[in-house]
């Protein structure tokens, strides 16, 4: 999520960190997914910062969104140009203080940054899963994270925090494992996607699937559907910004030009920005993972899954204290707010 990366002005950071791996659900104990399919073995890539207290009650789980990964903070090496995606927030003396807390972040399953996903090798075939990878849900992602937390010997998380799709995981954690979560900070998220949100994701997915290189997801030994994925990312970037903020950020300003070129190069700054974001994205992300993760986000419906249609009922089993942070109408998509239901079910909530 390179758009969030900023070097700490004071150069304060957790320092050099390393990615770790945890593998579980080896067949015959493969993981049973919400779709009833089975997945195993499952590998989770994760990083931790800070020290786990002797009573193991100072752990904070950070949950990343669509294109994030386990690398929340710090640098992999001294030569690394950029730190983790939330280095400004996670570190010694920072908002999430690694001198006090044991901070964990894992890559969600279905992704492509070390955890098992469509680009991982299927042990049964020796080739990448591709579309043989089962459709995973937010619930499946959280269940896999639970396995990691148990492996680390942690019975109760002090806090789960995450934004957007990470925020959906936060909500799911609170409802699925109520005894495990002491507090939760969902950021800019929703209990379920609206039709508009699904529509944007679908257009993005269609763009990938329409790329001639996509080949039904079987592209790992040849050219990747880079153009389709770039366009998908461009669509995403438009939804992150509101009409007003785009007007302020770009307007109709031209990119390094004084006049139109009368061809189909990028003339406007906004065009140049979108092309750049698309290009950068395909360097680090897998097209199939984009399909799987947006599908999981579209499928997610806390109200239906846990409340039988009632958000109040869904939250009634929750034990965590909440700090809900919303953004004022960012982008085009209005979320379906959990705060109302949290209040109605008498949960402790601040917003």
């Amino acid at each position, binding site marked *: 999520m390179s758009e969030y990366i900023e070097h700490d002005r004071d150069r304060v950071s957790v320092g050099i960190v390393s990615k770790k791996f945890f593998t579980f659900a080896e067949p015959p104990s493969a993981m049973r997914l919400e779709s009833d399919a089975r997945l195993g073995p499952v590998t989770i890539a994760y990083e931790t910062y800070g020290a786990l207290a002797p009573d193991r009650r100072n752990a904070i789980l950070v949950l990343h969104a669509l294109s994030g990964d386990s690398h929340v903070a710090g640098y992999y090496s001294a030569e690394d140009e950029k730190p983790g995606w939330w280095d400004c927030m996670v570190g010694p003396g920072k908002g999430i203080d690694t001198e006090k807390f044991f901070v964990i972040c894992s890559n969600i399953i279905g992704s492509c940054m070390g955890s098992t996903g469509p680009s991982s090798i299927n042990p049964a075939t020796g080739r990448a899963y591709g579309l043989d990878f089962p459709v995973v849900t937010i619930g499946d992602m959280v269940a896999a994270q639970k396995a990691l937390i148990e492996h680390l010997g942690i019975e109760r998380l002090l806090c789960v925090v995450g934004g957007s799709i990470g925020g959906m995981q936060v909500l799911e954690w609170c409802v699925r494992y109520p005894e495990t979560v002491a507090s939760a900070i969902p950021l800019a998220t929703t209990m379920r996607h609206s039709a508009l949100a699904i529509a944007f994701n679908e257009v993005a997915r269609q763009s990938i699937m329409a790329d001639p290189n996509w080949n039904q997801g079987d592209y790992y030994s040849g050219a990747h559907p880079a153009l389709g994925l770039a366009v998908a990312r461009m669509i995403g970037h438009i939804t992150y910004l509101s009409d007003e903020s785009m007007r302020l950020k770009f307007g109709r300003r031209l990119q390094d030009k004084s006049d139109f070129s009368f061809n189909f190069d990028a003339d406007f700054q906004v065009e140049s920005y979108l092309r750049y974001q698309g290009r950068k994205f395909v360097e680090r992300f897998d097209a199939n993972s984009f399909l799987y993760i947006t599908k999981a986000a579209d499928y997610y419906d806390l109200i239906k899954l846990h409340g039988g249609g009632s958000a109040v009922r869904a939250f009634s089993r929750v034990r965590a*204290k909440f*700090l809900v942070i919303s953004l004022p109408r960012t982008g085009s998509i209005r979320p379906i707010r959990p*705060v*109302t239901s949290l*209040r*109605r079910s*008498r949960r*402790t*909530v*601040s*917003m």
Partner: protein
Amino acid sequence: MKSGNNLMRYDLQIIASWIEPGSQVIDLGCGEGDLLQYLITQKGVQGTGIEHNEEKVAHCIEKGLSVLKGDINEEVHDYPEQRFDYVILSQTLQQVYEPAVLIRAMLRIGRKGIVSFPNFSHWDIRRQVFFTGFAPISRQLPYQWYDTPNIRVITLKDFRKFVHEVGFKILKEAAINTHSQDRYGKIVRFLANARATYGIFMIGKV
């Protein structure tokens, strides 16, 4: 009564004294949470607040309070019936666009309401209008007419009449005269309408 290191405002001291230990309370327009913090720490109250100023909300969260950043007029409708023992609206009624709607909502979500406001019929306010011909400015109503958030002028008599017209009753009232940044004061009974800087009322259903 102290909240944090400072003596709490006198009107809040009175309000706090009316609330039984262990009550469920919501403070509409809770500011930096001084009253809530006092009630929770000193009286074992379970309280929550709503405040529209983001900086003040951050202060509340820093104090460990459960608070919503939002507009009380909108947010109040999201709470279930009779959720609270007391719904507090202190020093906010003068900024409310639809007071009748809000008062009704307060007594839907709570058994009793506690409302406090600056008294516009204080003798000094009357003196200013009568002798100077300018719109009055006091410690309690310190703004100029053109940049004030206070869109309602309320006197003790106005409020008493209003409560009955909206269909509720007054359970308790205190007219208070304050000084020293409103941190000290006393209850006034004689010629209250003219001598009180603030009115505090507990209201409930008939």
